[in-house]
């Protein structure tokens, strides 16, 4: 299966190792990725808030590029997935807006038709490939305790996205279980990481993060597992900022799901991914050494919030 790959600006230019993990893993499931000259999805909290029409037209251009190639779009960021999916929904339900958008796109030599499906990696792995196939590829189980954060923009609006149950998401937990991890339930599982207001009001944003991570910390996980690069950066780098502002003591390692999948599949060069982490977790080399999981402060240069 071939997809137009939409890594999004955050993953492509700030969390490159997460993109690397996707490109390591998907060929093993016979998935080919095609890169197209996409722009930012665009991000709803800045661009859509400034001008809804601008947001819709940029999103339509991105989708039209994939349509031109006869490809569906594979997203890897919750924000991009939500933005493109909502734009597609809006264009389907509102023919007048679609017509206006297409008048603009005509000048770019493009037309939005609505034929490409927007699908996130989370859906490919859980809904298309499935737990059974995934577990058959696991060579090196990862015996750690994790809390999962599916991300607002994969869960809501539920009526449009259909990725998982928006109030009780379980699919990412099951995906983790497949790799030998123990997913822990926690109180504020569907709560936002706070990224949406980071630039506009950083103290408010980190206060949301503090609430979220306090809830995670209560169940004493070894790590957080996410499916969105923005949530990744918010948790990994943001926890240090929250610690400075509020005197908290968060120090949780964070993983983008396909990093762990690559490790569990025992693919070569996974140390390339882990080297970039700011909070490191020594993963047991085999099942025998399950007890030893040490967290250390890393000083690598992953992006700052």
């Amino acid at each position, binding site marked *: 299966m071939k997809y137009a790959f939409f*890594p999004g*600006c*955050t993953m*492509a*230019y*700030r969390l*490159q*190792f997460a*993109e*690397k993990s996707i490109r390591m893993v998907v060929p093993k499931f016979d998935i080919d990725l095609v*890169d*197209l*000259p*996409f*722009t*930012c999805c*665009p*991000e*709803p*909290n*800045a*661009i*859509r*808030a*400034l*001008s*809804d*029409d*601008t947001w819709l*037209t*940029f999103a339509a*251009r991105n989708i039209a590029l994939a349509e031109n190639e006869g490809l569906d779009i594979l997203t890897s960021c919750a924000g991009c997935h939500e933005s493109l999916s909502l734009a597609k929904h809006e264009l389907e339900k509102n023919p007048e807006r679609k017509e206006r958008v297409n008048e*603009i796109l005509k*000048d*770019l030599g493009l037309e939005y038709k609505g034929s490409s499906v927007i699908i996130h990696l989370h859906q490919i792995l859980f809904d298309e490939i499935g737990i059974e196939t995934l577990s058959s590829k696991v060579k090196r189980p990862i015996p750690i305790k994790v809390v999962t954060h599916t991300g*607002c*923009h994969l869960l*809501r*609006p*539920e009526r449009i996205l259909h990725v998982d149950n*928006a*109030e009780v998401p379980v699919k990412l937990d099951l995906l983790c279980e497949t790799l030998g991890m123990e997913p822990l339930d926690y109180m504020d599982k*569907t*709560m*936002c990481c*706070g*990224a*949406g*207001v980071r*630039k*506009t*009001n950083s103290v*408010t*944003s980190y*206060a*949301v993060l*503090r*609430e*979220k991570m306090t809830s995670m910390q209560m169940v004493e996980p070894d790590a957080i597992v996410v499916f969105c690069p923005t949530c990744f950066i918010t948790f990994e780098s943001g926890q240090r900022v929250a610690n400075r502002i509020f005197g908290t003591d968060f120090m949780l390692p964070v993983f983008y799901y396909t990093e762990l999948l690559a490790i569990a599949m025992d693919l070569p060069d996974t140390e*390339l991914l882990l080297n970039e982490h700011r909070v490191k977790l020594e993963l047991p080399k085999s099942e025998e050494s399950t007890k030893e999981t040490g967290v250390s402060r890393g000083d690598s240069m992953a992006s700052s919030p």
Partner: protein
Amino acid sequence: MTDDIQNQKLAALKETARPCFQCGICSSSCPVFRVAPELNPRISVDSIITKGVVPREGNEWLCAYCLMCDQRCPMGVSLAEILMEIKNISAREGKAPPDVIESAESLMGDGCLSPISGRSEKIRTELGLPYLPRADPTDVMKIFKATGAIEVIEANKETTQEATE
């Protein structure tokens, strides 16, 4: 012309907000309200319904657009979408926060919100990631012009200038 658009937007907002019966589940589900009660989605909607006034004193920009309110509203009123519309109205009046304008300018510059730097490209090369094709800057500019974003950005720059004078 601009006034027409603003009036249409206001009328549409009142219609969207109408089913709300002020139960407050939006606010109690809002992660921002939990730490910064000045953002209160219920109050924003109340002002629209009872006073016919769209509140835009700045708190609308605190919405993280996490859509928890949208998920929980028993009347199917999307508070997040209402707040998004309020942000659009507020931006047209030149009241967008500086970071929003910066993001728009970044998109206008290289089609991307996270700045593409020599260092970010170097990391891609080191990891063996492919070069990502970029959008034609002329196309990016065409969309900015045709959708009125340039005027909105200008309106906000004028406000910033007035504020500093």
